[in-house]
């Protein structure tokens, strides 16, 4: 599904603040798998997600999605396969636009944005039904600006938006980092539900060690731009929270 071959990324090459964020990453992600990425700050997790999504292009190496080489493809053209939830709840939605407008755009992720008015009663009903599943009471506030919602509500809606149009891959970049425990729980339950329902190939970054054990069937630890641990489902099952604490010593 996703393959990275010898992928490296260097920021500010040749300058005093040169940073090697990724160093020769070789990685294969199987279709339908749920990979959790762990690592301390600056280990290269977000850069890895960014080179997969196309938000930044690698300095060296090749990236393949569904056997298509996408190394030089910009982010907006990779969106036909990839949906993304950002760490910052502000990043994944347009705050001044209504909930309905945000969902309309999400429903057109892989389609052309044409000169027709696509928000009709049928679409409104579809969005209402989708949002009602969250149980947050937002289904009757579709005209409300996205910016007026709490971070947790926005992240939960962003997750629902990611499956409004066909998607293969879901990238979750610390989706609960900015949320209180209750909101984080709503977001993670929503994520679990849609990943299972749509059989999405998922990569999630988290700093929460409990979350990293609770979710996913593969666990990768990164350090200084390299993958230093890569555990499959059965190996991951044997890992305890105390082991994770030790990894970070």
């Amino acid at each position, binding site marked *: 599904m996703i393959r990275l071959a010898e992928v490296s990324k260097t920021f500010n090459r040749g300058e005093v603040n040169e940073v090697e964020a990724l160093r020769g990453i070789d990685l294969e992600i199987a279709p339908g798998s749920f990979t959790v990425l762990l690592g301390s700050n600056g280990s290269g997790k977000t850069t890895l997600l960014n080179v997969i999504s196309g938000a930044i292009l690698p300095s060296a190496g090749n990236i393949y999605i569904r056997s298509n080489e996408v190394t030089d493809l910009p982010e907006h053209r990779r969106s036909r396969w990839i949906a993304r939830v950002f760490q910052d709840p502000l990043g*994944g939605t347009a705050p001044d636009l209504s909930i309905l407008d945000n969902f309309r755009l999400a429903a057109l992720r892989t389609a052309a*944005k044409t000169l027709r008015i696509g928000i009709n009663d049928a679409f409104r009903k579809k969005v209402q039904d989708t949002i009602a599943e969250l149980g947050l009471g937002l289904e009757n506030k579709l005209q409300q600006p996205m910016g007026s919602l709490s971070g947790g509500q926005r992240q939960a809606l962003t997750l629902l938006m990611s499956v409004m149009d066909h998607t293969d891959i879901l990238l979750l970049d610390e989706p609960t980092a900015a949320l209180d425990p209750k909101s984080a729980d709503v977001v993670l339950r929503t994520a679990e539900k849609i990943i299972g329902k749509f059989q999405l190939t998922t990569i999630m970054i988290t700093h929460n060690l409990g979350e990293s054990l609770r979710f996913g069937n593969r666990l990768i630890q990164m350090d200084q731009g390299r993958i230093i641990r890569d555990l499959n489902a059965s190996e991951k099952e044997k890992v305890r929270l105390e082991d994770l604490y030790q990894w970070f010593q």
Partner: protein
Amino acid sequence: MEFYISALVLGLCLSAMGLGIFITMKIFRIPDITTDGSYTLGAAVTAVALTQGWTLSATLGLTLLSGAVAGVMTGLVHTRLKIDALLAGILVMTGLYSVNLSVMGRSNIPLINLETIFNKLSIFSRSVYNELWVGLLFLFILSGLIAYLLRTDFGIAMRATGNSESMTRALGINNDRMKIIGLAIANALTAISGFLVAQYQNFSDINMGIGIVLVGLGSVLIGDALINWIGIRNIWLQLLTVMLGCILFQMVLAVALSVGVNPNFLKLITALFVLIIVGIPRLARRRKH
């Protein structure tokens, strides 16, 4: 009275430019000052086309196209060369001065004894009412068209681009292309103002666009203040309010002139008025905090 109606008509003519600045400033959050050049370009193209016997509809089409090309140029400089939007606008605006001069062939073209949009569409016997009617006609057509555009799927993508670039990129939108299209639409609208004002004033002048961006900016800020104050959510009403801002701006200048202010100080008054519009809400906010 006719003096104030003239100000009203001028405000209506300039309201297309107000829409253009609303698109760049409020929707795309791009400070585009190509306006000074594309406004004069609209007037220059109109004057040359009309004096060469072009029909009004062909002249309007050519004006729209010329304004759009100016916007595309700014968009290309900004997105392809990654030059700050403000500088890109200054570069294109500066270049347009020479372009406008060579389009016109001289610094001023009078439009005397030519059929203008105002007498072509006349329905009243008094010219001032016809000017008002044509101005209102353009106001409703343009605001209706832009309101429709902004409600379409493409329009939602436009609005989102200025709001959250990370989101739009992740949703398959080419932000650079969207900005170029936005600047093209905005400057085409500005050129329409040049088209109308040249015919309303019966001349086109190479210097008529100097500082016009400030007039547009002030008008949009007035409109925006009204939108926030009244809490207008409907897009069409928002656009009409922005256009109302253009009219109010001209009325303020008309009042200043009628109380005896020296016309030489008109640009200074314009600048001070915009400063007040921008400054007062900021001062009020600072006090609140």
